[in-house]
């Protein structure tokens, strides 16, 4: 597995696990708390910061484990990355319509922020899946 493919797997796993933790935390409050009263800010920022930190740490880890491969990125890696980013961008563009509608409807900030976050999560996951399939089965 190339360094870039390992990087993609890291990104995909973190893109799934941390948002699940966030949504489990905040959505679990809904049965007994109004959306406007849910304290989502700290969990949301924590999830984003944790994702960034974990991604950096994991990349340092795979670089240490295979120093000869660290940072190597060839034309195939660039082609797959470009394709994955293209698909992720389309998903993001489609998904962000939801928070836009919520904003127009003057929904609670909790719903708007959470659906924006979800849009980015879906973009990251879809882009990563496309890249992994491209690495495994070809473009």
């Amino acid at each position, binding site marked *: 597995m*190339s*360094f870039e493919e390992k990087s993609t797997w890291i990104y995909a796993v973190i893109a799934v696990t941390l948002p699940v933790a966030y949504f489990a935390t905040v959505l679990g409050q809904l049965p007994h708390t109004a959306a406007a009263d849910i304290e989502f800010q700290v969990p949301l920022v924590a999830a984003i910061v944790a994702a960034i930190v974990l991604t950096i740490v994991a990349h340092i880890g795979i670089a240490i484990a295979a120093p000869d491969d660290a940072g190597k990125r060839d*034309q195939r890696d660039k082609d797959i990355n470009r394709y994955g980013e293209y698909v992720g961008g389309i998903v993001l563009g489609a998904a962000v319509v939801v928070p836009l509608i919520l904003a127009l409807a003057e929904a609670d900030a909790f719903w708007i922020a959470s659906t924006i976050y979800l849009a980015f999560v879906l973009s990251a996951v879809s882009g990563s899946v496309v890249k992994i399939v491209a690495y495994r089965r*070809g*473009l």
Partner: protein
Amino acid sequence: MLRFTHGEMTQAELGDQIGVTRQTIIAIEQGRYSPSLEMAFQIARVFNVGLDAVFGYPDTPDGSP
């Protein structure tokens, strides 16, 4: 395979010569990746053969290109 007729060159060695990873060479050999024209010429130059000796394109069932 050309690598084996040129000093049993490994995939990593071929990758190093043209500036790609071993995994890319594997993907090319398995048909999971079509290299760029530049990369194709570089591979052919490593083996000192023409492009046709390295790469082929399957004809359609009716025999047309």
